[in-house]
């Protein structure tokens, strides 16, 4: 992976930087031993590794601000890091950079039931927020499969989703405020406990900014009352197309399930072998449809979903009898990753989104690409919103397989874009899809995105090498190219 050229002068001044950092973050908060740095060399995208120059683990916003100010002054690059579960390499270290870990920001600061929100530090895990409020009947809706491990700060940085995002939205729809420290060390408090922050929606652009705009040191999330009733159905189909048609019909009849997940035959078999979830092994595609709401509403909705499924030639229909069975339905889907881990030494998880109606054709395309690249692929997806997660199986010890896996992944994403979709539905661009950005965006698109970056971090010190295939200097991006002499509407008085 091509990364920004390391700055030899910065590396040479490492010892001095350690001293200066220790003056800000005392004790064990500054890590310089190679043995300990190794723990930070990769994130959830394990194909890429790099040893950070240093790791610093601040505990307060003041420390974060001081660290950033110091590094800003010295031209030292920063890589923010939450729990390191990211799947696009967003927290991949830089050899001349300081990895700034937010793991010590691990406290929930306030639970405000009256305003239906929780104020938390960014290192708190996604699931811990729900755990903190569930005894009063509330929860935090976005539920990435990694929720026991990933941090809420990382969720904001990636704008993460989960299986329940079809109905309740992704991270950006479920937060109302952040505290952010800029690369220059300014502490900004954006939004609060009310909707629609004033002025430009900086909260909206920080969400999903992959650690390139600032370091998030506090998050205010919305919590919701737990639905009164939740029911799920497991539905098997003889073809992928039949399953995909069922998904479209459910939506077009006005039902918005809490979650609607689909798996192909390979994924069904692997998940069943791993989790014994009771999946039908003769199905070519499997849907988990979950509805929530009041008891009567869920009962009515489920009856309609099942009627639609039967019209779509479902061969297997099973509603959960009790809560334990509903959890079992999900256990297979949620363990799709470890299940693949048993079948193959390594796998990469792709993340394109397509218009739902294109699903059967895109899956045919993925099957053809699988043959072409000579690698197996299992498909799990958030079918309700068209977000695909093809899992490509390979062996990282075989350099040729890694190269083929990367090429296969890139071809899948290009296919998604060609079918009217996008490169990433929830895992972010990071380093993984960085060089594919031009497949979706032209030069003017990317330059406008980078102008936003320039407003926050004009020197490009925060997480460089991620998201953009080419970093333009801000001074160059700021120039105006006016074509004098070319005046349209010459008839207008002021032109």
């Amino acid at each position, binding site marked *: 992976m091509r990364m920004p050229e390391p700055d030899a002068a910065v590396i040479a001044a490492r010892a001095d930087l350690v001293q200066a950092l220790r003056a800000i973050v005392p004790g064990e908060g500054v890590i310089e031993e190679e043995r300990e740095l190794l723990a930070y060399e990769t994130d959830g995208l394990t194909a890429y590794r790099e040893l950070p120059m240093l790791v610093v683990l601040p505990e307060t916003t003041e420390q974060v601000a001081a660290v950033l100010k110091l590094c800003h002054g010295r031209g030292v690059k920063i890589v923010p890091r939450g729990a390191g579960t990211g799947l696009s390499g967003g927290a991949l270290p830089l050899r001349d950079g300081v990895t700034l870990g937010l793991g010590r920001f691990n406290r929930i600061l306030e639970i405000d039931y009256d305003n239906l929100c929780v104020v938390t530090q960014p290192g708190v895990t996604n699931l811990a927020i729900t755990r903190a409020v569930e005894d009063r009947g509330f929860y935090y809706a976005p539920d990435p499969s990694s929720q026991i491990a990933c941090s809420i700060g990382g969720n904001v940085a990636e704008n993460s989703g989960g299986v329940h995002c079809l109905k309740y939205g992704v991270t950006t729809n479920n937060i109302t405020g952040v505290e952010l420290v800029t690369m220059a060390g300014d502490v900004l*408090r954006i939004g609060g406990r*009310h*909707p629609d922050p004033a002025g430009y929606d900086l909260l909206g652009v920080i969400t999903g900014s992959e650690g390139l705009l600032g370091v998030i040191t506090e998050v205010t999330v919305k919590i919701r009352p737990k639905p009164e009733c939740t029911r799920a159905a497991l539905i098997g189909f003889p073809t992928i197309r039949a399953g995909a048609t069922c998904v479209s019909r459910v939506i077009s009849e006005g039902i918005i399930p809490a979650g609607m997940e689909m798996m192909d035959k390979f994924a069904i078999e692997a998940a069943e072998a791993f989790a014994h979830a009771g999946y039908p092994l003769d199905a070519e595609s499997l849907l988990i449809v979950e509805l929530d*709401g*009041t008891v009567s*509403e869920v009962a009515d909705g489920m009856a309609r979903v099942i009627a639609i499924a039967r019209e779509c030639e479902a061969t297997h229909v099973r509603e959960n009898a009790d809560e334990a069975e509903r959890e079992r339905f999900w256990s297979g889907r949620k363990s799709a990753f470890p299940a693949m881990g048993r079948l193959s030494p390594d796998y990469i998880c792709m993340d394109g989104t397509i218009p739902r109606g294109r699903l059967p054709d895109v899956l045919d395309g993925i099957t053809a690409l699988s043959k072409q690249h000579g690698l197996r692929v299992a498909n799990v997806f958030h079918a309700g919103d068209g977000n695909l997660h093809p899992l490509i199986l390979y062996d990282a010890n075989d350099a040729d397989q890694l190269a083929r896996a990367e090429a296969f992944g890139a071809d899948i994403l290009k296919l998604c874009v060609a079918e009217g979709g996008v490169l990433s*539905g929830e895992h972010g661009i990071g380093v993984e899809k960085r060089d594919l950005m031009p497949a979706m965006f032209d030069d003017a698109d990317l330059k406008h995105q980078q102008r936003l970056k320039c407003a926050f971090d004009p020197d490009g010190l925060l997480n460089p090498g991620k998201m953009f295939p080419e970093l333009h200097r801000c001074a160059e991006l700021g120039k105006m190219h006016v074509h004098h002499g070319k005046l349209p509407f010459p008839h207008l008085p002021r032109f």
Partner: protein
Amino acid sequence: MDAQVRPADESELVDAIMGLVAAGTPAQIIGAGTKQGFGRPVNAAVTLRLDGLAGIQAYAPDELTLTCGAGTSLATVEAQLREHGQELAFEPPDLGPLYGAPSGTATIGGVLGCNLAGSRRVRAGGARDHFLGFRAVSGRGEAFKAGGHVVKNVSGYDLCKLLAGSFGTLATLSEVTVKVLPRAERAATLLLPGRTVDDAVRLLIAAWQSSLEPSGLCCMPAELAPLLLASLPADAGCVAAIRFEGPEGSVRDRAGRMRDTLGGPSQQLGEAESGAFWKAVTDAAPFAEAAAVQVARPLWRLSLPPASAAGVIQQLVVRSGGSWLLDGSMLWFAPAGDTSAGDIVRAEAEGAGGTATLLRAPDSVRAAEGVFPRQGAGIERIAAAIRSGFDPSGVLNPGRLGA
């Protein structure tokens, strides 16, 4: 003196903005022009009018997305969606009548440019949450795009959020893609009259915290009620209203259970009345201005942490006097007399952890006091840098959002 430019497609829009840049002439950007009183007054000799960029380009009901020219009228979009039993779930308000303009003239670009949402915001989110992608021309005269045509996307920065609520100061939208959702089959509204402000807000929060999924939560002084729905009496005290939407059985069930849980006197509005009532709440109809009015009466919109609303209302009523309408987290406040009561309103909003926007006032007041909430110096610096990145010559709506 005023020149109006009305591009018919994106390339004409590029030419128009290039022309502005070359001539150093700023322009006022309007959809169909209904929201000109919103935001600080714009000093511009040229008006760039976007309603030529109209027409629905792609609508896939199964995909829950719609793509159209940014100048398409909201009415056209909504009519098309209604044919397929769908809607814009953020319930865009029609605020034209607040400014003495006719209703039904808004464009989708104007609604997104102002990030306007109605009563269903408490459940469905704001305009920003339904804005999936766009094509636009920045103040650099360059056409660009962001986002996509699908409901879930994290490819690159979320510039839709940046443009939603940017009041046309960064780029001029030429095409937008929005998320659409199925319309609920039925709606019913529970009215809870004769309450104190404290009580009413407490009931609304209890409803918000319940699992009965209300899709509208408002309250108002009783004398305002007949302005929202003619058949409502102007009793004493304050009226709270809670809306439920969904399939028929579910709506009946939830409204009934909510009534039993909350207790006290109540009344239920049926389908048609409920529709008229929430349309009036969403549009802030009691504060509409007569067409011929010369001096606009000041009108504020506050965004508040919901639980703080009762305290803010009581303080505003004591300190300034005036009329109010609480719609979810949003409080409309019209101070008594002709004053804007700016110091009081801003202090109360900020004290509660919220913000206050001066939606309507005479030009002189808006110019002197500013329309939008104050922000910290750090945020202002970044906002200014974003603006100069997207519109370095300041040709788009100069002065709209602030200095």
